[in-house]
């Protein structure tokens, strides 16, 4: 059984032509990069894989379960327990500290509180000294690291990252991608990263190229 299976999937946004997405079969622990120009459907593919957006057509299975077969509540619960997401805009909860963001994600993933693990993640990613800082007071690079730490804190089977290096220079892009892959490897999670950044494409096991968007 593959970790991710995607068959005959396409999506239509209102007023736009149907956007076909490639069939995928991604194994446990596999590291895949999805590249393509803007508008080619990279973010849409990631949202469909995360169960955040129901596709207009086709079937998407993650860890053996079709998202479409679940109720809204079950889909949200299962996402928390199987998928870690690094959003392009980080989407950290601004009212609580970096460490609390990790604690929250871990709790919603159904795991008991483990401050040692959370602090270890922050330490491993080089921002332990920022554990009690509010997300609004982080630099973009620091927020990106915090978002990665939060995504892996729930010990997901699948880690999805949307353009994680879009605002970084070459050196930092490679460093952040390295951290992402390292954390995923440490927890045995499969990784799918979307990017149009050719600098990091070579760091993955496999590349999926999306065509020009509509």
């Amino acid at each position, binding site marked *: 059984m593959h970790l991710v299976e995607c068959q005959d999937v396409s999506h239509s946004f209102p007023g736009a032509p149907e956007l076909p997405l490639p069939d995928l079969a991604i194994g446990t622990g596999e590291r895949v990069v999805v590249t393509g120009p803007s508008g080619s459907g990279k*973010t849409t593919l990631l*949202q469909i894989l*995360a169960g*955040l*957006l129901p596709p207009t057509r086709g079937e998407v299975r993650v860890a053996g379960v079709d998202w479409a077969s679940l109720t*809204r*509540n079950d889909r*949200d*619960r*299962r*996402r*928390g*327990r199987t998928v870690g*997401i690094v*959003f392009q*805009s980080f*989407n950290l*909860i*601004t*009212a*609580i500290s970096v460490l*609390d963001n990790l*604690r*929250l*994600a871990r*709790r*919603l*993933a*159904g795991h008991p509180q483990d401050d040692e693990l959370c602090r270890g993640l922050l330490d491993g990613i080089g921002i332990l000294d920022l554990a009690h800082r509010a997300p609004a007071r982080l630099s973009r690079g620091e927020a990106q690291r915090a978002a990665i730490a939060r995504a892996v804190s*729930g010990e997901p089977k699948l880690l999805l990252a949307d353009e994680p290096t879009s605002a970084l220079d070459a050196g930092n892009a490679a460093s952040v991608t390295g951290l992402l892959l390292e954390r995923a490897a440490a927890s045995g999670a499969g990784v799918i990263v979307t990017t149009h950044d050719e600098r990091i494409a070579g760091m993955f096991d496999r590349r999926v190229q999306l065509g020009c968007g509509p």
Partner: protein
Amino acid sequence: MNPVSLAFAYLAERPLATLLITLLLALGVGTISALLSFDHQFRERLLREARTVHLVVGSKGSRLQLVLSSVLHVDYPAGNIPWNEAALLLDHPAVSRAIPVSLGDSVGAFRVVGTTGVFLEAAGAHLASGRAWDGTFEAVLGATAARELGLEVDDVFATTHGVGTGGPEHGHDNYTVTGVLAPTGGVADRLVLTSLESIWEVHDQPTPTAGNGDAAARNGGNTAGPRARQDAEITALLLTFHSPVSMLRLAPEIDRHSAMITASPAVEIGRLFALLAPALDVLRGFGAVLMAGAALAVFTTLTAALELRQRDIAILRALGAVRTWTAGVLLAEALILTLAGTLLGFALGHGALAVIGNVIPEAGNAGLSGLVAAPGEAWLFLAALLTGLVSAGVPLLRASRASLSETLARN
């Protein structure tokens, strides 16, 4: 990290908005709670006095004024009645209790009442310290009067002529405090009580001549029983009857065949309610409009604040939060704000009544207190909580209908 702790974090993140919503709600709840409590106390106070005194006998003039001045101690007495005429009623077989009341002097903002020991019994008053008066120029102070005048047992003080402040003094330190009453929650708390003889002597009325055994025995013996005298006067006589029928028989007789008139507190207070009804209705209408305005303001402000949570609700769902979890965050935030605002409002409303009761002597004399809750305030509390819950309902509904991917993509 749970929905409640996250709700607290959201409130702490926007301290100014949190403070403004809390204050907005507190002002609305405070005003309405003060109105409700005032209305309730006003009615209760008047009705309680009406229950303990069946008939007031006083000088000819306004019956309402007689009740207000002699029973509630909130108006000026119109005049006096001859003691020898009033004293006849002390022994009347239909009368179960008779309390003579002689007004006209003050200590600061507090009225001096010349009376008998029966007054204490009727008011349900007990001595917190010292003893009752036992002769002329001895006084027992109500709890509030003693506290605000700073007087204790064995202290001496002077009275001034007139009901209210600013009258000429009756000599220097002519009275001695023999006792201080425990708080009664009634008008006795703000009175300075002494014997009738003290009032007579201060006003240079003829010295008492002989004892009236029956009256003295009926009215508490030596401590309280006034001695009969020929031309002394009192302000009013407060009567309680064995039966309403005997009162209905006696009252017209007094009105027709004496220089005195009678007033029934129940009737006069009923008349007062009728006179005040339009004003109280306007006050209640004002309260209702205020409450609706406050509810609307809190609803829109709280809804706007909770709308800001749409993005975070989407993030929480993306992280695995189920519907009850996200709803819990919004409801907890709304309830914490509403509870804080409502409790602060009750504190402000009752605090304001307590201040008014202490600062305005008439309000204090009427027994206005900050510690009395009106039954309507329970509904006010529920209405405020409901406003909070409904305010959370709109953003909740929107969040449940919003597309997760679109909300996340907007940010």
